């Protein structure tokens, strides 16, 4: 053998690979039997696993979720038949709708109500839809109106919150499928037909889809964890040992016990100046162009269906937030599933957009919140009197 051949033989791994491949042969009967047995046992194991997960999911107590979710759920369940009006949404609801003021104005209008504020900081769709379903499963007998904050379906979760239980407990298939549909833009039909171009952009992180892939993985993993009941052991221990969370009730239910927490404070002079400038610019631009997505409308349609099923009426509430100027709705392709009360128009509601009435772009001051509640109650009473809401 020449020196060159010897070197090639010694140092060329591909050649070695190519020389050593054995010819294919058909599986023997014993191998087929082993494979069949392995597949059968694997299927039995997988089936037992899935059934146990589903069974555990059905019998486990509701998870103890902080930030007021469990506290308010527990309170509402204990007092469900006392309320005929419910407000549900994020901190824009939590800190800005006073049930006492709302009930007072409605009483003056001749429509007495007893309302409860189920706002939770950072609670947007789809979490709010899940919580609403939990509230409605308690079957409140006297509930007549449910005000649901109307905003786009949120796909993003702050990185520091992604491992919290707050990001996990609502991730059932109903919520997750909508999120996945929105991220891949497959539409809301029964059959999922992803666009290959969109999938390519997502996988290659092109054209603004850099985070979409990560969000798809995140939400899929959350659904998996929720389905297989990750971390639910603590709920069993809490259920039997009775973790006392009642001491937090006042913190989340407010002094009046109606779920409303007024927030003090306002903008500094420089913040107010910057806000006024931004507001002026926003009002100088063209009318709203960012339509609520069909996935969002589908989520609200599901909420509205649940609300109507118990005999109540859904009202969709667009809050007076400076970040929601450009939100539009009512596009014929995605009609909202209920009456909309929109307050995202600074021209129609200038008092709610004065810098003196605001703590920041999202939230009103205490006096601003009280004024907003009064306006909303008056508008709602007018809607009832006009027959648009029964």
């Amino acid at each position, binding site marked *: 053998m020449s020196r060159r051949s010897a070197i090639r*033989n*010694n*140092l060329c*791994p591909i050649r*070695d*690979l190519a020389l*050593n*491949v*054995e010819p*294919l*042969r058909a*599986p023997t009967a014993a191998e087929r039997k*082993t494979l069949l*047995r*392995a597949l*059968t*046992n*694997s299927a*039995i*194991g*997988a*089936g*037992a*696993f*899935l059934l*146990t*997960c589903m069974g*555990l999911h059905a019998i486990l107590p509701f998870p103890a979720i902080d930030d007021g979710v469990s506290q308010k759920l527990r309170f509402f369940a204990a007092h469900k038949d006392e309320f005929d009006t419910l407000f549900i949404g994020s901190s824009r609801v939590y800190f800005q709708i006073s049930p006492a003021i709302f009930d007072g104005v409605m009483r003056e209008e001749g429509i007495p109500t007893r309302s409860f504020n189920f706002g939770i900081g950072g609670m947007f769709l789809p979490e709010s839809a899940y919580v609403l379903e939990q509230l409605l499963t308690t079957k409140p007998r006297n509930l007549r109106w449910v005000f649901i904050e109307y905003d786009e379906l949120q796909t993003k979760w702050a990185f520091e919150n992604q*491992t*919290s*239980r707050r990001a*996990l407990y609502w991730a059932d298939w109903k919520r997750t499928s909508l999120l996945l549909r929105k991220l891949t833009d497959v539409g809301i039909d029964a059959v999922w037909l992803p666009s290959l171009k969109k999938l390519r952009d997502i996988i290659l992180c092109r054209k603004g889809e850099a985070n979409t892939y990560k969000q798809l*993985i995140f939400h899929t*993993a959350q659904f*998996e*964890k929720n389905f*297989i*009941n*990750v*971390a*639910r*052991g603590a709920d*069993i221990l809490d259920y039997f040992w009775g973790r006392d969370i009642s001491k937090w009730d006042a913190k989340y239910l407010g002094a009046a016990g109606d779920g409303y927490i007024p927030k003090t404070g306002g903008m500094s002079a420089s913040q107010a100046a910057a806000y006024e400038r931004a507001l002026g610019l926003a009002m100088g631009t063209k009318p709203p162009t960012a339509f609520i997505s069909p996935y969002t409308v589908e989520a609200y349609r599901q909420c509205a269906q649940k609300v109507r099923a118990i005999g109540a009426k859904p009202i969709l509430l667009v809050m007076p937030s400076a970040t929601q100027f450009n939100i539009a709705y009512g596009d014929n392709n995605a009609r909202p599933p209920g009456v909309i009360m929109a307050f995202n128009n600074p021209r129609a509601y200038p008092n709610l957009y004065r810098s003196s009435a605001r703590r920041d772009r999202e939230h009103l001051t205490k006096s601003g919140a009280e004024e907003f509640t009064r306006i909303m109650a008056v508008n709602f009473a007018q809607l009832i009197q006009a027959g648009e809401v029964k």
Partner: protein
Amino acid sequence: MSFVEFRFLWFFLLLFIVYWTMRDNTARKVWLLLCSYVFYAAWNWKFTFLLLGSTTVDYIVGRMLARCKSRGWRRLWIATSVCANLGVLGFFKYFNFFVSSASGFLAWLGLPTSVSTLNIILPVGISFYTFHSMSYTIDVYRGRQRAISNFADLALFISFFPPLVAGPIVRAVNFLPQLVSARKFSDVDVRGAVILFLAGFIKKACIADGVAPIADRYFAHPANFTPRSAWIGVLFYAIQIYCDFSGYTDMAIAAARLLGYQLPNNFRFPYFAQNVSDFWRRWHISLSSWLRDYLYIPLGGNRGSRWFVYRNIMITMLLGGLWHGAAWTFVIWGALHGIALLVHREWTRLTASLEWATRAMRWLAWPITVYLVCVAWIFFRAHDLSRAGTILKQFVLFRGSGNEHFHRWMLLVVAALAFIHWLNSRRWFAEPWRQWPAPVFAAAYGCTVAVVLLFVPPHYTPFIYFQF
């Protein structure tokens, strides 16, 4: 990608099904090699080139060692391999440590310097696969291992994904012969492997990740806690590091077994050791045996005078500590174990004929060993020497002015886990499930996994040894 993540489950399912569907050994090895690189790339694909480069260097060195008969040339080649491997390890892991330590030393001497450290990412598993590949070239040099002509086999040995990122450290002499012939599925102890994987998962995901918040809370601000809480914090860390590391090892061994490969055992109930020597025969066995065979024995081992042996022990333990991390706390941890080994040797020598000492140590050996190991863990875990000092005062001297405390029932948790561990050492959980019919075992396994997942924390805690 780690063994407790969902994507590993899908990854392994696909790998397993395709692997056992193939009947050709070469095709299986190529598939395994590809999957191992994909596994590593899931963390950072750029460092797969480093892995490939390290493999290539050692393949060439191995081939040249096989060809060269001259002692001088063989020494040169083995030196090339060792320098290349340790150079890469040294750069990625220790460059900033040495630079900042040198800078601090010069400043202490009154010679302030302005040196900048580099923003170096530590490739995951570099400490482990470097030792894997060095074991190959050193054994070829010593004549214990034949040089591999098939590059893919060597690449698979070094990159084989189960032990790649956190051990056990695999020797070429143990693994390469397994690649020669095709594995048979009928030879695989599937039940044993899946049970071992589940046991490892419980140790890591339920126990280690469950106690981690307590240990982390304590070690972050030890001065805020009472001395009793110091004991709880340190004991919880001792539980965490054992369950985390041995849990990973169990899962790695189980995954390899499911593919037909045997990996060495890495733990043998270390917290039941009767002395520090015994501890190192039970803790991270693959590392201690690697250090013994490739460092301690070449330094001279037990041959020579007592002080010569002690020198060898201290060098081995100091470097063993440094291997774990680029920080003085790890060096001190290694030094403490080294000193404990020396003290044990001296004690054994001095009390060999003293019956009272032998009888006393029968009762005292175990608690003293556990205590010393826990003291050493303080340095292993502490953020810096200052905090280590605070913890030491609380743990050893019961001195501390903090007010925060952990509930006493946490000591019951320690006792309960220790009892379960003792039952495991007596093989209480070992065999009954082997007698069950396969469908019953499969159903019971599925149900058990579903129940175990209830106790997994929602947050993912990285494996401790990934940082090494």
